């Protein structure tokens, strides 16, 4: 089964930086203004919950491929205005992010190197009078826990990943009878689902499961199953 580790999507800065560092030409083909729109929507989108992490990256992918897929490029939200980042400002942010990214890698190494230490569990007979559990806090906590809106399942894959799986499955199902246009597949989907569907298509393509065809710049995209 097709799966996507959430780890792959650490956010649009991460993705941008990877493309830049890998010297992939694509990044130069993307109008900066559109990238900036991406940042805007990332920062200001109002109701983003835990799915955001992936959705943002999917949107980033979509926008990076914007020459391929113009219909997705309507402005983020009507009425939302945010200051545009200049290239220098964007470069500044990416530079700061790169440092954090490096720090995170070092941190991961340190955590790994220290994972084998287990603290002493030798304990004395418990001193009951020292530990007090607040009943008020316990009841307050119970009320909150049991009335919390159910969150998506998060075992080892992020909830949004399930959506990608669904959409990947949907795309594969749609292609069983031959090539289909992307527009056809996503007709009726909202922006987010469309973005995630495109990311799913990109992933399937990078896995060698399908080809993405486009006859002219800004033209419609056709998905063609690979044998």
């Amino acid at each position, binding site marked *: 089964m097709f799966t996507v580790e959430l780890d792959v999507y650490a956010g649009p800065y991460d993705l941008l930086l990877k493309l830049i560092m890998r010297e992939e030409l694509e990044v130069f083909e993307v109008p900066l203004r559109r990238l900036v729109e991406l940042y805007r929507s990332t920062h200001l989108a109002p109701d983003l919950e835990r799915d955001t992490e992936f959705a943002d990256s999917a949107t980033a992918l979509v926008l990076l491929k914007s020459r391929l897929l113009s219909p997705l490029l309507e402005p983020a939200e009507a009425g939302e205005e945010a200051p545009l980042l200049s290239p220098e400002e964007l470069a500044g942010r990416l530079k700061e992010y790169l440092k954090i990214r490096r720090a995170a890698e070092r941190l991961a190494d340190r955590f790994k190197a220290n994972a084998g230490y287990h603290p*002493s569990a*030798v304990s004395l007979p418990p001193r009951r009078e020292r530990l*007090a559990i607040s009943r008020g*806090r316990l009841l307050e906590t119970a009320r909150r*826990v*049991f009335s919390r809106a159910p969150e998506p399942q998060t075992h080892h894959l992020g909830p949004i990943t399930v959506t990608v799986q669904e959409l990947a499955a949907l795309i594969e199902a749609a292609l069983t009878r031959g090539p289909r246009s992307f527009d056809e597949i996503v007709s009726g989907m909202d922006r987010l689902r469309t973005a995630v569907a495109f990311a799913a298509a990109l992933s399937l393509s990078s896995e060698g499961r399908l080809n993405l065809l486009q006859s002219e710049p800004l033209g419609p995209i056709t998905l063609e199953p690979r044998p």
Partner: protein
Amino acid sequence: MNAAARIEAILIVSPRPVSLRALSRAADLPEPETREALEELARRYSPESSGVVLRHVAGGYQLATNPACARYVESFREVARPAPLSAAAYEVLATVLYMGPITRGGISAVRGVNSDAVVRSLVDRELLREVGRDEEAPGSPALLDVTEEFLTAAGAEGREDFPPLDELVSAEELERVRERVVRSGREAG
């Protein structure tokens, strides 16, 4: 790692005595070698010079403080801040109090995040304990419940001292939570 080191590492993470058999199995050593390693450790952790001693008690072997150091240990406990219960610990305790006996998977399903680490620390602190297994679920996971220790710390005589759940949340919300627990049981394994 040498035999004594393996045994030593296992003993220090166990709050209770460990049997020869359990030691030799976890350390991947034959019992005679385990016994020898224990003799070596007994020499090293001797009551004459060490602050930690190896005790051989009914249930097995255990590292413990040397009674000759009791004064200092007591004085440390006076100054040491007892680790307060975290918000996550309260959530797990509330979940088990009202939904228990319940599996680790069930607790995680109610809270929406993996709760194994929190459960482990509460079991270590003897506020939760395993009371059986859910034979219906795949893999028969352990069922957890709150302990006497928990009730004492909360100043309660028993469960009936806590208000019923339907006074805290609506029937509809409760149904949703129960549904999540049931679903997690079916998906486990």
